[in-house]
């Protein structure tokens, strides 16, 4: 039963990816103003337009172009950028590594902090410290990511002069120089992601706390710290795994803002530049990478919550 459910989830994830590719393709290819028009701009004559369209394969029907595009993407041929003529694979290469490195550090820092704070707030509901955590995290998730980033720059870079306000990297830094360049984007992203995770961890634990076996434990006099750590926590692990994967997925939108504001040479910055110059093949490739990552993380969350549920793991 469990294997079937997991397979079913993976199937749904795969189908979502196909639909995603269709959406990305339709949105960027069939809408008015095709690539040939954009490349030629004002100087377009009907003849040059037709020639360029034929060269780019734009004269073929939409579904054929879709399968060609999908096939190329599967085999790693992401096409060439319309702006510089460089292959998109070469543009993306290093950038993807930078973004993954940042996401990795954010996960390593924010997950322990969030679970600890969320647990701690759930252990002391209603106290003024819990209220500060609740109010603080609510405020943080209500404001745009760039607000947090702007305030971080104001305090840490402008007023205190502790950190540089851009994340410029040459590729030849020592570990400490790298950390210093990464610090501002990291701090911003950790704040954004942790606020969400703390709230969801707290809510998850409090949810478990209202179940009958916890009431039983209270009535037989088990100390509350022990109730949280021995009874509630293990039953909340499923929801917490879910929370972690979901929040890493939300990193996608945070990364877009943070890479722009700190000029961090990552994939999202590349994509924004692509949107600004309307470099559609580049945008398509980046969007597919981001969406695929998102779908896979959500899938992990789903499978994680199935695996952590003993009733599904050990069917009768």
């Amino acid at each position, binding site marked *: 039963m469990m294997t079937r459910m997991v397979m079913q*989830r993976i199937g*749904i994830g795969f189908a*979502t990816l196909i*639909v*995603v590719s269709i*959406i*990305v393709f339709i*949105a*960027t290819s069939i809408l008015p*103003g095709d690539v040939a028009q954009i490349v030629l701009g004002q100087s377009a004559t009907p003849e040059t337009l037709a020639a360029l369209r034929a060269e780019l394969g734009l004269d073929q029907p939409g579904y054929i172009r879709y399968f060609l595009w999908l096939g190329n993407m599967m085999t790693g041929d992401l096409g060439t950028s319309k702006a510089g003529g460089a292959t998109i694979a070469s543009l993306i290469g290093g950038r993807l590594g930078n973004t993954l490195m940042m996401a990795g550090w954010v996960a390593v820092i924010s997950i322990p902090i969030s679970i600890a704070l969320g647990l701690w707030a759930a252990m002391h*509901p209603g106290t003024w410290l819990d209220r500060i955590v609740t109010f603080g995290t*609510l*405020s943080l998730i*209500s*404001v*745009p*990511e*760039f*607000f947090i980033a*702007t*305030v971080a*720059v*104001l305090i840490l870079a*402008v007023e205190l002069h502790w950190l540089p*306000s851009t994340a410029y990297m040459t590729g030849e830094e020592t570990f400490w120089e790298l950390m210093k360049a990464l610090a501002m984007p990291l701090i911003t992203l950790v704040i954004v992601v942790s606020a*969400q995770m703390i*709230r969801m961890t707290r*809510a998850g634990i409090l949810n478990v*706390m209202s*179940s009958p076996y*916890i*009431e039983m434990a*209270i009535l037989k006099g088990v100390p*509350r710290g022990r*109730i949280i750590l021995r009874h509630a926590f293990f039953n909340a692990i499923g929801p917490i795994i*879910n929370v972690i994967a*979901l929040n890493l997925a*939300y990193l*996608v*939108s945070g990364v*877009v*803002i943070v890479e*722009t*504001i700190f000029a961090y040479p990552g994939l999202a910055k590349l994509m*924004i530049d692509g*949107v*600004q110059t*309307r470099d*559609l093949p580049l*945008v398509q490739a980046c*969007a597919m990478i*981001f*969406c695929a990552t*998102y*779908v896979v993380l*959500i899938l992990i*969350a*789903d499978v994680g*919550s199935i695996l952590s*549920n003993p009733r599904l793991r050990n069917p009768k």
Partner: protein
Amino acid sequence: MTEQVATKKEEEVLAELDSFAELPDAPPKRKFRLSWVGWLSVGVVVFWLVICVIGPSIAPFHEMDMDGDDSFLPAGQGEYGYFYLGTDYLSRDTFSRILFGARNTIGISLAATLLAYLMGITLGILAAVKGGWIDMGISRVNDAILALPTIMLGLIVIAALGSSIPILIGTAAVIYATSVFRIARALGQDIMVQDYVEAAATRGEGIWWIIRAEVLPNAAMPLATDFGLRLVFVVLFISSLSFLGLGVQPPASDWGSMVRENLQGLTYGSYAAIWPALAIASFTIAINLIVDDISAKSGGSLAKKMV
């Protein structure tokens, strides 16, 4: 746990739970009582809504006039008048631009949210009432859009179509209509199996009568609670796009693009980027606090009280 549940944000789950608490067979409704924080937040929201209407007429300068003596000046007297919050990177009055910008930022977001509600409720109720393949079709497309990060969808559309105010409103409306659809459909399905709907159907009432007289009135209140949350998401979405330079285009004033334009001023000690950011934060935090206040459960279980 289904995929749909796993992809929800915490707020959406809470909003949905609240939605069901408002159904006809739920216990009698709590009194509509707000704490002082709630009232303060209502004040902030009303203040900004009023500014949307009267902002441009009370602003000391026009949003596009470069009346200041220099860029990034602190608050003070200039040649043409008093600059309450200083000047921005083009020597324009930051205070006036915030007053003008309220109309763009909040106006566009409100328009998009209303449009999202119109689409989401229409399709959601339709799916719930008709069922069958109509429901299947709409739901599948809906799930696919919902499975993508909103900012990615926005970027893809803007890459293809360019940025203008109608496109911003349309894109945000379609993206956020998906969540409204899901809530409206769930509510509609719940209401459609109630006894009073069955009674009306037996009485021989037509489908439109049932939708108008039974389904919509009963779904209205829970959907209204959700409106606030959705508006916050849309404000954040629109201002993030503006911040990336892909939303409201200069020289029009918009809080998101104002932060972007004046970011470089931070290094000269100018707060021109901070004020619009604070304006967004005050509006969105206030709405979230109101929603939080309304949905806060009075009482609670034994465990919550004792642990």
